[in-house]
């Protein structure tokens, strides 16, 4: 089972670039208008609406630029073999970072089993549906020496619940990737794995 991650597609990236260009154009246009007025009158008196639009445009530009920047973040591509493993057995996790691998500073891999349930929060005026999660198993794998590409052997424990999925209650197992990158936020990825019931012995 090969799992790919990517913050967003190339076309989404193009969209963010265009949005950034649009915000920059608004800032440039407003700056130019006020500069021409200032040169003519010697007074800089922007209207409140102009200030509001400018602040909004600067905020939007910052946000669009950070979105664009995320496109260049390194991201892991993971192969989990076999795709489904019984309790008590093990599976291999291979990964390779795509993108700017040199920006990956550190990484950690963990196997997590958790409960996920839909519940009703009745504390407010209206009952609100919420999804609650609670981990019941977390096992960190040894931190690999080579970060850009590598593999680890992950042992699935015995005596716990295999993957279970109903409408409102789920038992999920996942391989959790966490990595710190240069000039970027801490990245967290979760790759679900199918854990099967224990194979009967004897």
């Amino acid at each position, binding site marked *: 089972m090969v799992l790919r991650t990517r913050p967003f597609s190339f076309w989404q990236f193009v969209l963010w670039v265009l949005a950034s260009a649009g915000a920059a154009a608004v800032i440039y246009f407003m700056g130019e208008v006020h500069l021409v007025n200032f040169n003519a009158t010697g007074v800089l008196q922007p209207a409140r609406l102009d200030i509001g639009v400018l602040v909004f445009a600067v905020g939007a530009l910052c946000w669009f630029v950070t979105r664009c920047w995320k496109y260049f973040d390194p991201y892991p591509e993971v192969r989990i073999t076999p795709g489904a493993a019984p309790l008590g057995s093990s599976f291999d996790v291979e990964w390779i970072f795509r993108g700017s691998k040199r920006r990956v500073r550190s990484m950690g891999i963990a196997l997590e*089993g958790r409960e996920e349930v839909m519940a*009703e929060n009745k504390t407010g005026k209206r009952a609100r549906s*919420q999804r609650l999660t609670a981990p019941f*198993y*977390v096992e960190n794998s040894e931190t690999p020496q080579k970060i850009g590409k590598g593999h680890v052997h992950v042992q699935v424990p015995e005596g716990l*619940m*295999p993957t279970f999925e109903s409408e409102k*209650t789920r*038992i999920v197992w996942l391989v959790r990737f966490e990595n710190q990158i240069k000039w970027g936020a801490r990245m967290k990825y979760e790759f679900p794995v199918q854990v099967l019931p224990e194979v009967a012995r004897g």
Partner: protein
Amino acid sequence: MDSLQIILARTSAEFEPGNDLVGQLTWNISKAPDRVELRLFWTTFGVGIPESKIVQAVTFDRLLTFDSRAFKFKLPQFPYSYRGKLMSLSWVLEATAFPSRRNVRKHFIMGPAGKEVVLPSADGEVFDASRKAA
């Protein structure tokens, strides 16, 4: 006095996946029921929204006021009975007489070696994932 009873062939209420669930359904009701339904299902309970799923069912009809019928279900491989921090899952055998809707339930455990799976509590608080997703 009216009675409706599920009597399992085994005294223990612990079963392994794939086991046969054998027993007798007996009743003594003043008015003969039209039919009696026997359902095998799992149900969840805990802090989340409970749910149930019927796995097998059988209906007995042409009944007397005092009668007894044998039944046999083959238990599925999954899901196991479990007890977790948020939810628990239990297996149930339920008999309902119609039209009176008198019913009786028998809870039992189905899991590896006939034991309920008890989920440990790992580090980490209960997390409202829907708030993060919103």
